[in-house]
C-alpha cells in the first residue's frame, strides 16, 4: 500500500481563490429594509436542544429534575432563561403565601403558616387591628365602674380580713401595755408607758415581776405578730388569684368577641384558627399588657408593633405574599449567599445584647420562588460559603430550614430562633459555564442526583439562509431591546459576517449575544455621530476597526519588534532548517496572530529529536506530543532497515514564554526535513497546521488571526506577490478574513495555500517535489524525500562506524 502522504506528492498546491477566503452574508431571501421590519426573534433563538431540555425540566415535577443550563457566559443564558420563563409561564395558580407567627408555647420555634395566595397581608392586618382594638376596649372595660366595683370588693375583702387580724393584734398589744413599731427592716414589739416607749433605764427600774410579765407579754405578741405577718403572702396570693380570675372573666368577653369575628373570616384555615386560639389564650394570660401604658410607646397605631414592644408577640410576619402575582413566580438570585437563599434571622441590639424574635425572620429567594422557579448563577453560588451545601440540603429535605452562617462557623453565641421549616416545591435552574458543569459532574457525587436535566446552550448556529435570517432578527431584537437605531440591510450583513468570524467558522454564526450587543451599541453611537438614522455597514466596520485598534497595543508592539529586526522574522529569501511558524495570542478577548521563527539542527546521533522548548519546560504537553509525532513520522517514512541515527533539535527562536499546542508541528517537520535534506525553505511563506504520523495535515484554531498576523508584517515590509500562508485544507471552511487580506489575495499580492499533506507543504516551501518511493523502494533523485533519506543513511553509517570503532577499541 502506498503511503497516503505520497498520493499527491507531485502536486504543487495552488493559492486559494478570493471567494474561499471570506463568505459574505446572503440575506437575499429575507425581505426587509431595516431591522424594524423584522419580526422579533423567538425566545431561545437557535437553542432548540436547550429549550426542549428546559421545557422537559419544567414539566417534570419529580424530585431531582432540576436544570443546569450551561453555555458561554457571553451567551447571556440567565436573561435568555428569564425571558423564556416569563414568556412561557408554566400554567398554575400563584403559590401559597407564608407567614411566621409567634409560637406562644415555644417562642424560639416560630410557627410557619401557609395561606392561600393573597391572604397573608389581610391576616396580618386583621391581627394588628385586633390588638389595636383590644388596646382600646380592654382598658375601657377595666376602668368601667362594674369592674372597679368587683375589684374593690375583692380588695376590701382581703383588707377587711387582714385589718381585722392586725387590729386585733394591735389592740391586744395595747391592752398589755405594748406597741408594735415599724423598723427600717420590719417590725418590733415595745413596752409602752404613758405613751412613750420604755427604754432600758426605765425598764430596769420596774419591779422584777412587772418586767417578767412584760417580757412574757412581748414574747406572746411577737409570736402572734409573726404568725399574722406570715399569713399575709398567702392572703395576698389568694387576692391576686381572685383578681386574676376577675380579669380573665372581664377580658374574655371582649377578647372572645373580637377573636370570634376573626375566626369566622379564616374558618377554612385550621392553622390560622389554631393560632387565633393561641392568641386568645395569651391575651387572657397577659391582659395586664393592655392595661398599662409602657413609656415612650404610642397608644394607637402600628407603633405597637415596633421591635421590642410587648404587643409584637401577636403580630404576623409576612414572609412571602403572592397577592400581586397571577402566575407562578420566577426569581433570579443574583447574590446567592446562604442568607439570601434560605432567609435569615436578623438581630437587633437591645441594652448591649443581640435579641431577636419571629418578626425578624427574613425571607430568602427560595421562599419567594417556592412553588415556581429560581434561577441561580452557579459561579456565584460556589463563591458563597456553605450556599451549595445548603441548597442540596433543602432539595433533599424538600423543605426550607433557615440556617445561620454565624452559628455554623461559631461566631455568634447569642440566642437565636429555630423557625419551623417551610415545605419547598421549587424548580431550580443553575446556569454556568460548561467547565463548572463538568467539574461538578465529576467531583460532586450528589450533583446529578439534584440536577438531572442538562440544558446545553449552543454557542453558534448553522450558517444557512435560515440561520442568517434568525441572526438578523436576533440582531434587530438586540437593537430594539436596547433602544438603539435599527440596522439597515448592509449593517445586518456586516454584523452577521462578524458573527461568523466570532465563531471562527465561515459556516457557523455565533450566538454570543453579549458580543453582538456590544457591536450594535457602539455602531449605533457611530451612526449617531455620522448623523445617520440607521446603522449601516460603514458603522459596523468602523466599530470593528476601533475595537481592534483599542486592544491592539501589544499586537502593534510585537509587530514593531519584528519590523525593527529585534524579533528576527524573514519575509523573503530562503534558509535551510528555518521556517516561519504562526501562533495566536489571546488577551482579554482580543486575539492576534504573530509569526515565530522555528529552526532545526541535525547531526548523527541516537535517534532522538530534542524539543528544546520541552527541555527547558517552556513547552506544554500538547506541543511535546506534536514533536514526538515527528519522530514517528520520520521513523515510519525513512528509517527502513536501520535504526534511526539522528540527533535533532527544534526550537522556537526568541520565544521566552510558554509554547502550547501542536499547530506548529507541520512547520517543525518542514524545518526538520529542510535541515536533513539541506534544502532551503522559503521565508516569504508562513506555515500553520498540525501533522499526524502519516504526514496528514490537520486543522488548527485561530486560522484567521494567524493569516492576518503574517499578512500585516508582510504589508508593513511591502507585499512582494510571493508572500503567503500555508494552512490545513480542513481550515479553509473557517476562513473569514479581513477585507484587506482578501483584496490582496484577489490582486495576487498575497496568497493562502491549503495543504493536505506535509509533502504539499514541503514542496511549496522548497520548490522541490516531495517525491515518492519508486518500485525499487528508493525515492526519485532530486526530491526532498530522497535527500532526507540519503542524509539519514549517512548519519546511520557514521554512527555505525563510530560504534564499530568503539567496540574495536574495547577488544
Amino acid at each position: 500500500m502506498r503511503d497516503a502522504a505520497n498520493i499527491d506528492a507531485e502536486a504543487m498546491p495552488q493559492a486559494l481563490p478570493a471567494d474561499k477566503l471570506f463568505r459574505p452574508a446572503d440575506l437575499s431571501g429575507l425581505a426587509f429594509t431595516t431591522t424594524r421590519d423584522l419580526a422579533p426573534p423567538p425566545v431561545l433563538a437557535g437553542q432548540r436542544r436547550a429549550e426542549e431540555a428546559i421545557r422537559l425540566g419544567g414539566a417534570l415535577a419529580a424530585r431531582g429534575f432540576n436544570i443546569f443550563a450551561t453555555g458561554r457566559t457571553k451567551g447571556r443564558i440567565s436573561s435568555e432563561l428569564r425571558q423564556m420563563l416569563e414568556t412561557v409561564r408554566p400554567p398554575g395558580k400563584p403559590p401559597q403565601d407564608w407567614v411566621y407567627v409567634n409560637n406562644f408555647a415555644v417562642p424560639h420555634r416560630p410557627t410557619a403558616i401557609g395561606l392561600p395566595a393573597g391572604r397573608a397581608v389581610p391576616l396580618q392586618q386583621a391581627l394588628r387591628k385586633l390588638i389595636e382594638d383590644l388596646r382600646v376596649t380592654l382598658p375601657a372595660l377595666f376602668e368601667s365602674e362594674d369592674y372597679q366595683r368587683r375589684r374593690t370588693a375583692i380588695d376590701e375583702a382581703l383588707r377587711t380580713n387582714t385589718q381585722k387580724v392586725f387590729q386585733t393584734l394591735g389592740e391586744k398589744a395595747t391592752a398589755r401595755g405594748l406597741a408594735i413599731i415599724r423598723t427600717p427592716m420590719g417590725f418590733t414589739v415595745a413596752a409602752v408607758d404613758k405613751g412613750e416607749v420604755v427604754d432600758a433605764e426605765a425598764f430596769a427600774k420596774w419591779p422584777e415581776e412587772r418586767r417578767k410579765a412584760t417580757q412574757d407579754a412581748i414574747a406572746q405578741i411577737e409570736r402572734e405578730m409573726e404568725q399574722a405577718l406570715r399569713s399575709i403572702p398567702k392572703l395576698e396570693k389568694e387576692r391576686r388569684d381572685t383578681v386574676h380570675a376577675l380579669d380573665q372573666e372581664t377580658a374574655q368577653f371582649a377578647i372572645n368577641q373580637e377573636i370570634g369575628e376573626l375566626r369566622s373570616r379564616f374558618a377554612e384555615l385550621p392553622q390560622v384558627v389554631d393560632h387565633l386560639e393561641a392568641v386568645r389564650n395569651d391575651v387572657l394570660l397577659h391582659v395586664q399588657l393592655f392595661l398599662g401604658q409602657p413609656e415612650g410607646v404610642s397608644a394607637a397605631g402600628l407603633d405597637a408593633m415596633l421591635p421590642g414592644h410587648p404587643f409584637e408577640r401577636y403580630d404576623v410576619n409576612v414572609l412571602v405574599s403572592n397577592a400581586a402575582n397571577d402566575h407562578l413566580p420566577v426569581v433570579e438570585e443574583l447574590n446567592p449567599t446562604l442568607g439570601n437563599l434560605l432567609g435569615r434571622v436578623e438581630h437587633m441590639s437591645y441594652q448591649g445584647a443581640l435579641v431577636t424574635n419571629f418578626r425578624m425572620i427574613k425571607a430568602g429567594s427560595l421562599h419567594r420562588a417556592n412553588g415556581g422557579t429560581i434561577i441561580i448563577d452557579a459561579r456565584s453560588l460556589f463563591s458563597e460559603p456553605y450556599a451549595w451545601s445548603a441548597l442540596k440540603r433543602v432539595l433533599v429535605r424538600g423543605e426550607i430550614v433557615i440556617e445561620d452562617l454565624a452559628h455554623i462557623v461559631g461566631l455568634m453565641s447569642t440566642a437565636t430562633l429555630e423557625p419551623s421549616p417551610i415545605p419547598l416545591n421549587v424548580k431550580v435552574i443553575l446556569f454556568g459555564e460548561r467547565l463548572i458543569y463538568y467539574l461538578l459532574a465529576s467531583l460532586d457525587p450528589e450533583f446529578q442526583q439534584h440536577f438531572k436535566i442538562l440544558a446545553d446552550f449552543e454557542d453558534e448556529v448553522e450558517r444557512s439562509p435560515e440561520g442568517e435570517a434568525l441572526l438578523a432578527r436576533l440582531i434587530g431584537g438586540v437593537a430594539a431591546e436596547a433602544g438603539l437605531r435599527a440596522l439597515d440591510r448592509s449593517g445586518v450583513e456586516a454584523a452577521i459576517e462578524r458573527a461568523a468570524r466570532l465563531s471562527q467558522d465561515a459556516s457557523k454564526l455565533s450566538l454570543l449575544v453579549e458580543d453582538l450587543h456590544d457591536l450594535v451599541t457602539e455602531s449605533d453611537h457611530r451612526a449617531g455621530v455620522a448623523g445617520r438614522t440607521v446603522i449601516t455597514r460603514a458603522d459596523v466596520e468602523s466599530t470593528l476597526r476601533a475595537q481592534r485598534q483599542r486592544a491592539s497595543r501589544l499586537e502593534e508592539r510585537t509587530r514593531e519588534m519584528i519590523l525593527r529586526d529585534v524579533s528576527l522574522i524573514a519575509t523573503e529569501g530562503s534558509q535551510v532548517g528555518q521556517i516561519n511558524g504562526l501562533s495566536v495570542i489571546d488577551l482579554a478577548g482580543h486575539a492576534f496572530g504573530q509569526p515565530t521563527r522555528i529552526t532545526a539542527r541535525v547531526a548523527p546521533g541516537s535517534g532522538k529529536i530534542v524539543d528544546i522548548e520541552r527541555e527547558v519546560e517552556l513547552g506544554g504537553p500538547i506541543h511535546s506530543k506534536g514533536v514526538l509525532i515527528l519522530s514517528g513520522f520520520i521513523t515510519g517514512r525513512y528509517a527502513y532497515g536501520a535504526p534511526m541515527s539522528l540527533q535533532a533539535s527544534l526550537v522556537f527562536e526568541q520565544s521566552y514564554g510558554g509554547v502550547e499546542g501542536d499547530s506548529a508541528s507541520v512547520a517543525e517537520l518542514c524545518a526538520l526535513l529542510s535541515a536533513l535534506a539541506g534544502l532551503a525553505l522559503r521565508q516569504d511563506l508562513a506555515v500553520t497546521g498540525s501533522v499526524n504520523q502519516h504526514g496528514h495535515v490537520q486543522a488548527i484554531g485561530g486560522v484567521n488571526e494567524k493569516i492576518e498576523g503574517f499578512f500585516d508584517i508582510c504589508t508593513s515590509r511591502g507585499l512582494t506577490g510571493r508572500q503567503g500562508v500555508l494552512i490545513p485544507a480542513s481550515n479553509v471552511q473557517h476562513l473569514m478574513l479581513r477585507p484587506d487580506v482578501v483584496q490582496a489575495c484577489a490582486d495576487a499580492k498575497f496568497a493562502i495555500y491549503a495543504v493536505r499533506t506535509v509533502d504539499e507543504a514541503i514542496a511549496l516551501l522548497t520548490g522541490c517535489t516531495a517525491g515518492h518511493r519508486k518500485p525499487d523502494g528508493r525515492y526519485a533523485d532530486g526530491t526532498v524525500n530522497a535527500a532526507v533519506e540519503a542524509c539519514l543513511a549517512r548519519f546511520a553509517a557514521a554512527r555505525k562506524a563510530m560504534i564499530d570503532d568503539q567496540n574495536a577499541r574495547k577488544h
Partner: protein
Amino acid sequence: MVKESSPYRRAVLGMPTGGVDRHLLRAAAEFARLLELELLGVFMEDPALFSLATLPFARELRLPGHDWQALDLQRMGEELRAAADRERRLFEKELMAYGVACRFEVHRGDSATLARHVARASDILIVEEPMEIDTLAAGGDPARLSLLSAATILLVPRTGMPQGGPVAAVVADPSDPCLRIASRIAAATGEKALAVPSVDQPSTAALLGSLRLALGPRRERLLVLPRQGITSDGMLLEIASQRRVPILVVGTAAHPVEGNA
C-alpha cells in the same frame, strides 16, 4: 390674662421608714409638676426605735425573711441612716425626669410629727392609700394621720389609677376653692374640670352617689373634696377605695377629725 397665684408652696411627701413606693414617688412628682410646687421628701427617724434598742431583749422581725434579730442601738442608727440615704437617692433619681424643684430632709419623729409639725397649712401633704400591714404599727398609718395636719392632703391609691378623665370637685357653690384648684389641675392636664354638687349630710354613700350621678360610667382623673365634708378618716379611705382615684382634700378641718389615729 393674669395667672392666679397658687395658695400652695410645697408638696410634702413622707418617706416611710420601710421604704417608699416608686409609684407614689412618680405620682407625687407629677402632681408637683402640674401645680408648679416644690416637692419636699421627708424621712422620719422614729426616736422610739432608739429607746427600744437599749433594751437587751428587744428584737425585730425582719422582712421579707421573717427572721428575728436582736435590736442594737448602733445598728439601728446605721440602718436608719442607710434607709434615709437609700430613699434620698431614689427620690432624686425618680424626680430628675420630671424637672420639679425638690428637697430631701430627715426629721426626728413619727408620722404624726410629720402631719402635725412638718407639713404646714400652705403645703400639700401627699400620702399613699395604706396597706393592710400599715395598720399593724402603733400610731396608725400615715393616711389616717394626715388628717391631723393643717395641710391640704393628697391621697394616692395604690392601684387602678385612671389614665385620664375629668378633674371632679365636690363643691357647694362656684366660688368654692375646690373648684379653683380642680380647674387649675384640669388646665394643666388638658382635661375638663367637673363640678359635683355637695351633699347636705356628708356621708360616704351620699358622696359616692353624687359622683356616680355626675360622672356616669366614667371615672375622674382626680377628685377634689372639701375638708369639712370628711367626717372621719374611714370615710376618706372608703371613698378612695371605691373610686380608686387620687383624692385632694382641701382646707383645714373645722373640727377635730374622729378616728383611731
